[in-house]
């Protein structure tokens, strides 16, 4: 029963969504502080490449992750520095970095393509792995997967249950108010852009060291944009973001399945399924329908429901803050 196709599929969906979950958490931290790091796609390619190369040369996956984290943090630093210090458009910088990361990773990684290297070892959690169904799906994975789930929780907790989390949110929602309360807005923004970038780096490396093992030009192309879309889809909340990433993974798996069943239909049609679904859900959440659901819900449920369904971006997202 443990290796039934369904269980295996679910386990593979979980595995495949981990990099997205990690990247989404990173970007949520960044955007909640008021900065958009649009360079995710390029950053992920760069860090996937770096992660693999470092791991290959040192024969140590963890050093690979460390290197990838450094690259991610550095790209993010450029975004933060460019927008805060040089007052340039975050979007322009991010976009340029996306293109740069794509080309640079192809160039620097050209001697390392399609060769085997170290990978993250499988690690089943004792006891938990033996729980029927749940065990094999969730606890028969590897450390990166566990890290992703812990990260979701930690990010959520940090944002909504801690004092530094309040400061972080004030920077993204109403920086003047935070500043008047003694919060160093630009410090917050540097900090969380860099941390977020580091996490995106980890996400990139978990492709080359864990999922699509090895390096090839354009290995992770497209996933950065997907992560950015999931951040919006998830309404800047790590928990909803996680569900978004899982939903994305599940529809992708469904698409693959359908494709095998109906070989006569074009591949493109199936590949579009996750996107169409995402747009539909966003439309639904933004429509009157949701309002009505909220108004008919029992009173005690209304507030949490509203908080869950109502999506609004950090109000000061993408704007520069000038301290006198």
């Amino acid at each position, binding site marked *: 029963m443990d290796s039934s196709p369904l269980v295996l599929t679910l386990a593979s969906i979980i595995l495949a969504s981990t990099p997205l979950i990690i990247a989404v958490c990173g970007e949520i931290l960044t955007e909640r502080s008021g900065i958009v790091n649009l360079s995710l796609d390029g950053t992920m390619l760069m860090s996937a490449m770096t992660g693999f190369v470092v791991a290959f040369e040192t024969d140590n996956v963890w050093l690979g992750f460390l290197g990838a984290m450094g690259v991610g943090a550095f790209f993010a630093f450029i975004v933060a520095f460019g927008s805060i210090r040089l007052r340039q458009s975050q979007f322009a910088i991010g976009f340029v970095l996306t293109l740069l990361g794509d080309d640079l990773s192809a160039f620097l990684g050209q001697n390392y393509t399609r060769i085997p290297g170290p990978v993250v070892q499988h690690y089943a959690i004792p006891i938990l792995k033996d729980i029927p169904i749940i065990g094999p799906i969730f606890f028969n994975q590897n450390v990166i997967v566990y890290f992703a789930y812990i990260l979701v929780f930690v990010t959520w907790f940090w944002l909504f*249950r801690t004092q530094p989390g*309040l400061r972080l949110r004030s920077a993204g929602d109403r920086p003047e*108010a935070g500043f*008047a309360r003694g919060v160093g807005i630009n410090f917050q923004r540097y900090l969380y852009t860099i941390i977020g970038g580091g996490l995106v780096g980890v996400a990139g490396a978990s492709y080359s060291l864990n999922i699509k093992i090895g390096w090839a030009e354009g290995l992770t192309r497209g996933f950065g944009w997907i992560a950015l879309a999931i951040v919006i889809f998830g309404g800047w909340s790590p928990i909803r973001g996680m569900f978004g990433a899982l939903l994305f993974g599940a529809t992708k798996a469904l698409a693959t399945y359908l494709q095998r069943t109906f070989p006569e239909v074009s591949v493109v049609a199936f590949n579009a399924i996750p996107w169409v679904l995402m747009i539909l859900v966003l439309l639904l959440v933004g429509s009157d329908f949701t309002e009505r659901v909220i108004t008919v819900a029992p009173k005690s449920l209304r507030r949490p429901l509203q908080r869950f369904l109502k999506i609004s971006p950090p109000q000061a997202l993408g704007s520069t803050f000038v301290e006198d």
Partner: protein
Amino acid sequence: MRGQRPRITAQEIEIQNQYMADNTEFLPSGKPKISTMEMRGIVKRFPGVLANDHVDFDVHSGEMHALLGENGAGKSTLMRVLYGLYQAEEGEILIDGHPVQIESPHDAIEAGIGMIHQHFMLVPTLTVAENVALGLPSSRGALTDLDRVSARVLELADLYGLQVDPDAYVWQLAVGQQQRVEIIKALYRGAALLILDEPTAVLTPQEVSELFVTLRQMMVDGHALIFISHKLQEVMDICSRVTVLRDGRVVGQQPIDQVTKGALARMMVGRELQAQPEKEEIEQDETRLSLRDVWADNDLGTPGLQGVSLDLRAGEILGVAGVSGNGQRELAQAINGLRTITKGTVKAGGKDITGASPAVIIQQGVSYVPEERMEDGMIKEFTVAENLILREVNKQPFSRGGFLNFRAISRQSDELIKEFNVKTPSKDTPVKNLSGGNIQKLLLARELSRKPEVIIAAQPTRGLDIGATEYVHQVLIDQRAEGTAILLISEDLDEILALSDRIIVIYEGEIMGEVSAEKADPEQLGLLMAGVRSQAGE
């Protein structure tokens, strides 16, 4: 809670301990008082303006010191220097006789200074308790201690009569409640000196008197308070001393019992004020604007206007009185095409403009002076000159064949700036750098220079100094004399009574009743504003 002030010496701690014993130098919150704060020779320049020119200002524990001055006189700037938001180029700040360096709001807070800003500084997406806790150390290290914060908030609320729900989100609160949160925030943080920058501008009379109860209590307890307002009566009522600024300089400082309202006004404006302008009789026949059973939603998605009908005739001023948040904003926006009308019709000059775009409505000769100057009225990154022609960019003589005629624009701006007495370094200054009151003047200049058929004026004098208020009133009366139809939406009952020909009262999105200006008495209007319908027969 010692160590509140920077560079505290062992000797001072000794002294404080002594005071702790007889408890005279401490506030009920347990924080030390600031017995004197002095600013000496403060100079602050902005490109093209000397906002503060060697200003001396001081305040003592247990008093409320008023800071008066016209729009752009430099009041907010001086206070922002004290609160560490701006750095002064010259001058020093002394607390209890010791010079202090205030380089950021953080330093100011450490020194026991709190500020209620002209525009509130709350994070709308956080709860009241979270806003209070923001930026403070928590008793649980990195974890929030919102339960303790809430308990303390309730305690302070009790002490000073400030009712708030610590768990409510700030975006859900009315303006008056948000202000209470601001005060609690400052008290929570142990502010011994509180700066209040135009705290009453957005409050209803009822809320103002509640605020004053709180402030009096704070004074008795030994807080030092600085109060900025354009309403002289308030200053006379509650302050003990007054300092008047003009063009960045102190032009007078006096105990309140040695001045009169007239004298203060003269000091501020530098001239005598005129008596209330006289309205002439004029014919009011042609209906310029008519609303029939208009419904519209507010921002929360519930009906903010519930079947409003009204007729506005040429040459009359129709006053819309009401307590803030009863649909005034929705009414103005619905007429001007900025809010979807869910039911009913709006006609201007006989033409149906229900659901029309703002561009079409502007062409129908409707001018709009919005309540939210920055959001609905101005593009804050644009210059003064650009904003002045914003509504007429496509028209002669400002535009020929799609190109802007800069000479004509520049001439027009110079004229308007002069005529409306807008204080700005130049016409090429971005609007965001102007003082609150001057932005309002600019907006009026633009809207009134178009010779409109209908004017929708929402809170046209909010935040304006007395000179400018007088001027705006005169302009509205002149427009009326020329046959313009004016809808005056205001929460200031005195303004409504002084200007209107007819008065309607709006309550929860409905028109409660109409009275002619001659028959109106404030008491009856007050009842209608509170939602009590007039007795049968009246």
